[in-house]
């Protein structure tokens, strides 16, 4: 035991925490931008008046759900630079994660919208609401409640998914762990620590969702 702590200094821990910050930043970027994309996709997938919007959104979802995230990362990270687009590494890394989030969350949004009984939409229409008002006042309250559990499930998956960034040499939490383990040889300790940090990011998300669900249930 003692020699492990000798090899393993507070600098290594700081390095891991920096990696964790990168992971969190990637997730925040992917989740926020991806959600906006997902809203658009979900609305297109359920379009009433402009039904032709359904199929491009459907193709997008199938492609990004039907191929490995790892491949999407490779293509975005290396493919874009081959095309002569020299994006900052954080941006190049964010793009596939955003697209991946858009596809999965888009389906969650669609399920949320479709969870609203037809009669409620018709009741809204019958009092003269526009489609936009219907979405905002009638669909959203139900859809949000339906969307919370699968969204949190996806977010947790996303946090762990960002660890794939390590294969292209992008230094996030997993890559940071790899680097530290190479220099300290304390592989077990380092990755136990890395795992704990991931858990420390994911678990509060689950807790927050449980609280939110309970709070929203009160008004049902």
């Amino acid at each position, binding site marked *: 035991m003692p020699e492990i702590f000798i090899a393993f200094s507070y600098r290594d821990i700081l390095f891991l925490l920096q990696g964790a910050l990168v992971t969190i930043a990637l997730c925040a970027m992917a989740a926020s931008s991806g959600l906006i994309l997902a809203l658009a996709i979900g609305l297109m997938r359920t379009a009433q008046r402009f039904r032709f919007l359904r199929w491009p959104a459907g193709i997008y979802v199938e492609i990004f759900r039907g191929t490995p995230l790892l491949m999407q990362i490779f293509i975005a990270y290396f493919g874009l630079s081959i095309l002569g687009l020299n994006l900052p590494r954080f941006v190049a890394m964010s793009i596939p994660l955003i697209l991946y989030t858009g596809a999965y969350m888009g389906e969650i949004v669609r399920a949320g919208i479709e969870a609203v009984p037809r009669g409620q939409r018709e009741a809204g229409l019958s009092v*003269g609401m526009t489609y936009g008002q219907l979405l905002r006042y009638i669909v959203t309250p139900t859809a949000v409640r339906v969307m919370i559990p699968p969204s949190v499930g996806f977010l947790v998956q996303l946090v762990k998914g960002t660890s794939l960034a390590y294969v292209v040499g992008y230094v996030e939490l997993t890559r940071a762990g790899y680097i530290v383990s190479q220099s300290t040889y304390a592989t077990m300790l380092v990755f136990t620590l890395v795992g704990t940090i991931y858990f420390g990011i994911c678990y509060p998300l689950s807790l927050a969702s449980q609280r939110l669900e309970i709070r929203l249930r009160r008004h049902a």
Partner: protein
Amino acid sequence: MLKLENVHKWFGSLHVLKGVSFEVSRGEVVVVIGRSGSGKSTILRCINGLEPIQQGRIEVDGDPVEAHSRQVRHIREKVGFVFQSFNLFPYYTALENVSLALKIVKKKPAAEARAIAEEMLTRVGLSDKLEAYPDRLSGGQQQRVAIARALAMSPELMLFDEVTSALDPELVGEVLKVMQDLAEGGMTMIVVTHEMGFARKVGDRVLFFHEGEIVEQGHPEQIFTTPQHDNLRTFIQSIL
């Protein structure tokens, strides 16, 4: 104020309305009866543009009803609709269910919307349930909230689509009472119902639908005591 001319409606290959024509004048209470599948609910849904028609013409106050068009909203503001399954908004209180459209469709200030909603809920006998959520209300109470919600828009025409069919028998009376009060207050109404007592007492005219057509119409007394058409005769016997 309402005019239907030769209205045809198909669901796919199913021909559900086969040339329906009738008119409703202001203040009239028209009761529509017929077996399930006769097209009587469909005709109501076509009148406020929830279902498109494939042929013919529907006019409210001279304006054509075209489902999916932009101006159909303005017709819906004038035409109240009450559903068999209430369709209250579950995450809004009774008061909010009634005031929501006043605020966002009629753009009334919150205080005025609230005052109107309170007045409507009082009118249907629910002044003590303003803050209740729909799942805390009985079926009869929910349906009365739904009626108040439609009335709040000050419609010129009210459509009732089998509004008591989903209710426990002991709750039917309270809803019919509200409708009768409305009729006596001069509201123009089309009521699709199986409540023959109500049809007889409140209706000015009864339309009998059979397989997508109006096969007989007339004053309630005449319809119920001296039905002409065989289908109407067997229908009335099966109901009584």
